[in-house]
């Protein structure tokens, strides 16, 4: 078993490295303007999470966790990026993300959210005994920034991407805190996320067909 040859220290370093990479990609999503690029960023982040999951599975010798890693690879690094690319292809020429806040202020907010994440999560992680604990604040920062991306984007597709980035952050947080939640729950969550994205895709088309735009600001009929 690899667990014998890999020390906790090495694992801890690899975990920190991948979590940094995942957070870096989250921030890169803010910088990238084109939707195709953003979908690629999300796919890459999912790939890193899948590899990290498998690495931790090897370290702990958990077959179930390895299965979770493979499912993650298929659902979030292959299927969902394909679905998103399909909708980006179909919605026509308007492919710019169009945030409310420009890149520079958005990055400052990201920095603030990361500080908040450390402030909230570092004390929580302290009592943890797992070698993965140090990266927990990074994962939490990813959740907060994903949430921020959702509220900062006008395009329906980028809102979906924000939701997915947030999901990835939550998955990473659970993975680092407790080596993930039980197998049946992880699988159920993947299924839910997949169905949710498929339904969201349908609504992207509905919005496009009925509002001549995928700008969610156009959605303003239901006022008081």
């Amino acid at each position: 078993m690899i667990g014998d040859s890999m020390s906790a220290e090495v694992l801890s370093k690899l975990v920190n490295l991948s979590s940094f990479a995942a957070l870096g990609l989250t921030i890169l999503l803010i910088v990238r303007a084109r939707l195709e690029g953003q979908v690629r960023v999300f796919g890459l982040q999912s790939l890193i999470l899948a590899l990290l999951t498998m690495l931790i599975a090897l370290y702990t010798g958990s077959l179930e966790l390895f299965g979770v890693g493979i499912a993650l690879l298929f659902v979030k690094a292959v299927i969902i990026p394909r679905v998103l690319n399909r909708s980006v292809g179909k919605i026509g020429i308007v492919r710019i993300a169009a945030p409310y806040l420009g890149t520079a202020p958005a990055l400052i907010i990201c920095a603030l959210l990361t500080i908040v994440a450390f402030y909230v999560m570092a004390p929580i992680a302290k009592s943890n005994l797992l070698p993965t604990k140090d990266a927990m604040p990074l994962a939490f920062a990813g959740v907060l920034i994903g949430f921020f991306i959702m509220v900062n984007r006008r395009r329906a597709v980028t809102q979906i991407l924000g939701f997915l980035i947030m999901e990835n952050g939550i998955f990473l947080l659970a993975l680092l805190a407790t080596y993930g939640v039980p197998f049946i729950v992880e699988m159920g969550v993947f299924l839910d996320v997949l169905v949710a994205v498929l339904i969201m895709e349908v609504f992207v088309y509905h919005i496009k067909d009925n509002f001549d735009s995928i700008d969610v600001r156009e959605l303003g009929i239901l006022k008081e």
Partner: protein
Amino acid sequence: MLLSLLLIPLTAAGLIAVTRRRVLIELVHIVAAMATLGVAVAIAVLVWDGNLLSAAGNLFRVDALSALMISIIALLGAIASLYAVGYIRAELADAHLSRIRLFFLLFHLFIFTMLVAVTTDNLGVMWIAVEGTTLATVFLVNLRHTRASIEAAYKYLILSSVGIALAFIGTALVYYAGAAKAGEIAVNWSTLRAGAASLNADVVRLAFVFILVGYGTKAGLAPMHTWLPDAHSEAPAPISALMSGVLLNVGLYAIMRFKAVVDAAVGPVFAAHLLIGVGLLSLLIAAAFLVAQGNYKRMLAYSSVEHIGIVCLGLGFGGYWGVFGALFHVVNHALAKSLLFILSGNILLKYHSAEIRDVRGLMRAAPWTGALFLAGILALIGLPPFAPFISEFIIFRAGLESYPLAAATGIILLLVVFGAMLASVNHMLYGEPPADLARGDALRLWLAPLAVNFALLLALGLTLPAPFEAALKQVLLVLGV
């Protein structure tokens, strides 16, 4: 028996998916809804007799609290299912069969996901099922496929998914608190509850904040309620009745489950203060939007925000009577709100408008609808002899003792809601109906099941039946009050 409760709606959905004739679809639909109700009643009686049901290892476990939720889901599901047949015949008269099939299929999937959520002992599976309720209802909200309904459904999907994602952080943190301390893997409510004293208090506190915001989104608590008025007003009436009367309670149910763990881990004050805070905020926002509300379905939806807020106040005020009142109010609100939303469908079929200013003279134009609507509104705003008066009285009585300032603020906001809703309804019920409007109720015979809501609201307002009181007491024991 527990598994058959879950399998009936699931099988019904499968059968409806492959059925090609409208009459057969309706038949499967009605039979399934009635069978669900029958099994649910049998289970509830067994559980309230002191038995604990479990199935599939420990994946499913029904205690008194689950039994209460099962009863609400199945009873109101059955009532809404009967009306749904008539309503869909009228509303989707010339729609393609596939849309009618989709409606009934999703109806039963919706019931199925709610039943899973309240019967599983595994908090992760509960989360999956609650997200499932969103996925099952989003196409129902968009059934009419107008610009407004697309907008409502999209907003509902995105906001609920985000909210529920936050609830997952809370669930994972509770799991973490259990795994880190006890050294064992536990995401089952019963084991967490039993070992709550050994949980890491800081982690549990943080977890509950996420749980409250996350499941609070599903429950329609401010400030994450903004999807609710849109979705509940755009959905077809029988679905609005279930979303407002039942689904919100599933969100509350999740909060109650976690609160029981949190109370045992860090004491009751922490959760109580948070619940009172969001309860008052919900009341305030509901009151603000109910004053001069122009759309009667949105009026009912904002009133749901108000009533879920009242339940949270009851849970927060705490003590035996605070929580007793909260549970009682859950039942009462479910009965009154499903009655009113079903009637709103009737008004919509009659006047073809959801605007209050377009509806005049309901009492004369549609006497049965009007009279029942009036009774439902009087119950909803808390007038005797209806049951919500009693439960609100119990809650605020408990509140005046434990948190007098919060309780007094709540009562003032209730008075604002009282005046606002009465003014709106007054406009709808009286006056001269439009001259070109034919007299008589739409779907009069399909309203017959509403007699159950009316009778229960009246009966529970006049007496507190001993079996009902005993059942609520058992729920209090489950919650550790």
